[in-house]
């Protein structure tokens, strides 16, 4: 099927990139996953417009963007509530709609959360690079020409013509996540928690950390009580692999949550965020507060099962 013009970017806002679920299997070459920071919102958005879960979407940050439909396109907006509108009318989120040719989708600014996902029926017709359509901003490849979207960009789609069956699909209201601004993020200790003093570990668990404005897609930097490491060990370690959700504590004692744009690091990692809470990381904004709660690996896997079973049940309902 020939791809046709689907939407035009009128204004990209603060930062809008093309992302899917990320790029895996190339860590040996230093290639990081990239991908949607809130993978849950991306998967649900795709299901709402009858796409495969892993299709590429637009990820837009805080201010949102403005796009114009160049044909009738089935869309769904999920993730952060950045107050989407079609022309002057508010658009219901977590629900699929037809954006008619010539209509403009815009956002009036953040109400809750940090990143919205715009799923387009038929997806985004760009070539996958190393198995994924995600944009790697640090290495400048993938997505749309390896960079954030700019005004005037036209995106193509394989089948933007809305399937009537998929219009006004809604996600289960009780499963729509809320983004409170005060977060409790669940972690598993390690791999280097032993390198911190008992006092340092308690500081980490009992303190509220404030999200710094220095945060971006590569990491969430936190301000708050300093985490003390044991006295006899140096600040850095021999560089090793890490994952999205690794919590590094550099020499200054202020934790940094690593997101999916790097494969390795040379600082000690006190804890790792559980897989089920990773999507939340995409919705944390500068100024928000985070508390960490330690749980066991088994509890983390149960939480992951619960999340996956919701997505599975939603999929079954659609078929």
């Amino acid at each position, binding site marked *: 099927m020939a791809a046709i013009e689907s939407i035009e970017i009128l204004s990209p806002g603060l930062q809008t990139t093309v992302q899917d679920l990320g790029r895996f299997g190339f860590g040996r070459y230093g290639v990081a996953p990239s991908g949607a920071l809130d993978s849950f919102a991306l998967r649900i958005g795709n299901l709402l417009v009858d796409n495969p879960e892993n299709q590429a979407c637009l990820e837009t940050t805080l201010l949102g963007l403005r796009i114009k439909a160049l044909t009738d396109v089935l869309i769904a907006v999920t993730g952060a509530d950045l107050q989407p509108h079609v022309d002057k009318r508010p658009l219901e989120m977590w629900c699929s709609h037809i954006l008619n040719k010539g209509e403009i989708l815009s956002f009036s600014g953040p109400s809750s959360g940090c990143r919205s996902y715009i799923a387009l029926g038929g997806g985004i017709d760009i070539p996958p690079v190393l198995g994924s359509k995600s944009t790697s901003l640090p290495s400048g*490849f993938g997505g749309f020409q390896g960079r954030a979207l700019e005004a005037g960009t036209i995106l193509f789609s394989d089948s933007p013509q809305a399937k009537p069956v998929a219009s006004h699909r809604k996600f289960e209201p009780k499963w729509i996540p809320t983004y409170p601004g005060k977060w409790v993020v669940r972690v598993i200790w390690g791999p280097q928690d032993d390198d911190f003093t008992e006092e340092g570990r308690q500081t980490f668990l009992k303190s509220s950390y404030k999200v710094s404005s220095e945060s971006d897609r590569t990491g969430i930097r936190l301000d708050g009580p300093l985490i003390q490491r044991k006295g006899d060990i140096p600040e850095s370690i021999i560089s090793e692999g890490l994952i999205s959700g690794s919590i590094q504590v550099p020499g200054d004692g202020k934790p940094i949550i690593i997101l999916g744009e790097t494969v390795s690091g040379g600082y000690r990692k006190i804890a790792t965020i559980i897989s089920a809470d990773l999507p939340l990381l995409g919705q944390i904004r500068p100024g928000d507060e985070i508390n960490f709660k330690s749980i066991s690996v088994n509890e983390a896997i149960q939480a992951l099962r619960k999340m996956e079973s919701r997505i599975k049940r939603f999929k079954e309902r659609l078929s």
Partner: protein
Amino acid sequence: MIYDKLIFRVMGDRALLVELGDKISPAINKKVRELFVSLDHQEIAGVIDLVPSYRSLLVIYNPLQISRSELENQIAKTQKGMDPARIPSPKTVEIPVVYGDDYGPDLEWVAAYHKIAPQEVIRLHTQHTYQVYMIGFTSGFPYLGEVPEALSTPRRETPRTHVPKGSVAIAQKQTGIYPVQSPGGWHIIGWTPVTLFDPQAEPPSLLEMGDQVRFHAITAEEMANWQP
């Protein structure tokens, strides 16, 4: 020291850090490579990615597909059953470098730091064969070790926000090549026309962990005529 037995460390609910030794050494790194190559061939169901580094291998997996204890068993079994003689040898790669001037803006500083002539920095940098200990930091960035003691240089106090693609640099006992433009705190002593990272190529990175690298000096004129 090379550990007698693999040490497994939990990295959250979906990654396992497998440690093979406790320091930077070619022998430990070789063990990491052997295990990495063997596990890569094994294609264990549920394993999503493998990230080898100086002294450890990170195994990223889907915990709903394989349990951590099962994964540990399989990794230990793979290590016991593997024959290092059957692991393919790493390749040796020659990298041409234009040293100094605009190509290597920190060459003079590094020379002055060690109280030697810039030519001596070049001689020391090119006389050694380096091992690719890992690829990390950005796509395709090789961590090469180790530079001679006489060249070991602390990082720049202020990192640059833009290091040009192709820059050849030194920090402490390591040397590396920036495959894409990125921030960086290493001292830039030269520049290579060789493409280190090409996402359209197979494999996308010229260098792989374990490879051996030698630098040789070329002039700016030779660089202009250089063909890949």
